């Protein structure tokens, strides 16, 4: 359990700037999710904190201790790798035991067995414990990889897209499990994902990375309701926020170049005429694909709507976000 602090951290691989002056505090006991597309610097951040790579610039501290020069073992971090990185010649049980059998820990065998059994149960891999690590499906390997981190009680958990290759149901189960493990143990957890549902449901804080820069850091709700840019606004929300030319509707501030409309920021029944192109019935909600003067707009409506393709719906913005030409939010 510890606070992780990054100050002005930078890292380049050859000519590519992977991280650019990132400053971030991961509070003790928080669940921080890093969001961003491939190449944004999420994995690099984890590797720098783990000590697998060394930063070119800046300071990283774990539990108020500067970790420069410390090995991953000394930093006491547990990492879940995106490519699983299981020990292929060992069984699932041996893989899970591996971190506990470290001579530093001197865990008694009964304790190891109990811990491994417990974690295997949570991850639903008990029946696979005696399989070889290579005789597993991708999802099972990923769970073993998570298990290898969970058997320990490290200062920080670092997880790199740990649920990416699981099926939808298992992913939903494990989201709940991971969140409750973290909440109950008070562990500090740094989590990398593409999946905004994971970010919204598990995170206490979300960090948005864009080309190596941390563009916004805050609670999921804060991020959703107060995005600093088009980029940050596009990370969260399902369906995605609609980004349209500001001039499409009246009343935009002077500098505004774009207007951002989440479904709840679109008021139906008054304003401009738009054409219904497609109606997607998802059960609990219905999505409307609209066309307003050749600009596509996706919004949500009543689940039992009678609207059909070809109908006309009047819409108007309600407390929208305005962005300037560079994509920055105009308050």
């Amino acid at each position, binding site marked *: 359990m510890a606070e992780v602090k990054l100050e002005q951290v930078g890292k380049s691989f050859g000519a590519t700037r992977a991280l650019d002056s990132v400053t971030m505090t991961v509070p003790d006991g928080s669940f921080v999710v890093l969001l961003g597309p491939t190449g944004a610097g999420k994995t690099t951040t984890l590797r720098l904190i*783990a*000590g*697998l790579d060394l930063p070119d610039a800046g300071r990283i501290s774990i539990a108020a201790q500067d970790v420069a020069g410390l*090995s*991953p*073992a000394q930093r*006491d*971090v*547990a*990492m879940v*790798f995106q*490519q699983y*990185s*299981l*020990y*292929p*010649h060992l069984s699932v049980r041996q893989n899970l035991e*591996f*971190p506990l059998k*470290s*001579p*530093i*820990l001197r865990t008694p065998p009964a304790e190891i067995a109990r811990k491994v059994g417990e974690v295997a149960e949570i991850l639903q891999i008990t029946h696979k414990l005696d399989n*070889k690590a290579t005789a597993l499906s991708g999802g099972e390997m990923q769970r073993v990889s998570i298990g*290898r981190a969970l058997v*320990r009680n490290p200062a920080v958990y670092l997880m790199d897209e740990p649920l990416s290759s699981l099926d939808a149901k298992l992913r939903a189960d494990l989201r709940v499990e991971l969140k409750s493990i973290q909440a109950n143990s008070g562990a500090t957890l740094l989590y990398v994902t593409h999946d905004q549902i994971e970010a919204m449901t598990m995170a206490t804080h979300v960090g948005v990375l864009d080309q190596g820069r941390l563009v916004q850091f805050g609670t999921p709700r804060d991020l959703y309701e107060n995005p600093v840019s088009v980029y940050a606004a596009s990370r969260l929300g399902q369906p995605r926020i609609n980004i349209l030319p500001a001039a499409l509707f009246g009343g935009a501030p002077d500098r505004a170049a774009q207007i951002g409309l989440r479904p709840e920021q679109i008021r139906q029944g008054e304003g401009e005429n738009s054409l219904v192109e497609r109606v997607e019935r998802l059960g609990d909600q219905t999505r409307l694909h609209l066309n307003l003067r050749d600009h596509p707009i996706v919004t949500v409506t009543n689940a039992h709507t009678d609207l059909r393709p070809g109908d006309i719906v009047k819409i108007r913005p309600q407390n929208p976000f305005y962005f300037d030409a560079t994509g920055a939010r105009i308050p």
Partner: protein
Amino acid sequence: MTFTPIDKAARATPPAMARRIRGLSDRTIAWIFVAPSIFLLLAVNIFPLIWTIRLSFTNFRVNRPNNDVEWVGLRNYQRILTDEGTWATMQATAHFLIWTIVLQVLIGFALAFLINKKFRGNDLWTTIIVFPMMLSPAVVGNFWTFLYQPQIGLFNYVVAFFTGADPASFSMIGDVMLAPWAIVIADTWMWTPFVMLICLAGLRSIPNSIYEAAECDRASKWRQFWTITIPMVLPFLMLAVLFRGIENFKMFDLVVQLTGGGPGNTTTLTSIDLKREAFEKWRTGYSSAYAVILFVTVFGLASIYVKALNKVKER
């Protein structure tokens, strides 16, 4: 309608021929394809083997084709297995085999481990280290006789430099005690690079991320070496041992060039002994029995070994 090249070929085939081809079943066609290989295998492998086994029960001598051939039953086998000279030869072979494998595996793995570290010019070093393997065994045998020369030999001078002994006071190839080691050293010099290459392939097959995971799991370098590196390279290592074992059981050229089997019979390996029996003493029946015994030995050992290898791979 469009035609694929196969359709065109089918159309171009004369009707008479097409009828005959169409009459062939898939099985027949399969046999036609494998027949040449089967024929070659029978002609150059199976037939000589059966013929050798047949000859091993006779007193046939290939340099006296007109003599009557007498059926002697198991007498050849009995004579070989009770002959002290044969057992001395076997011992020399075992000594050569065991020590070359032990030394080559240890040194080869150590070299591979070092070369696998990232440093400047390691490709160049690999090429240099692999060089001895590319030479002809006859050439290697020949120049090691010079290296082992008591008066002018570099080897003796190097040993003398480290031990303080007089370089002319010992002869690696002339001494009964040293000659078995002389051939072990020369073979190790020549073939360690081969073991190194296979070990290097094994080491390179271990993804770096596994070491990173172990690093996060707080395994020391020592523990990583024994729980990750060694088990994952082991199948490769065992393969190298198999190759070197089979090769050195048949060792002939290098040793003949270096010591000629001497002094006395101290470096007469089984293959050298067999060649003398068969083509110097012309005891064809006797040497056939000898060859069968060696074949059974190698085949038996190799089968047991391959089984063990597969078990390691499955782990």
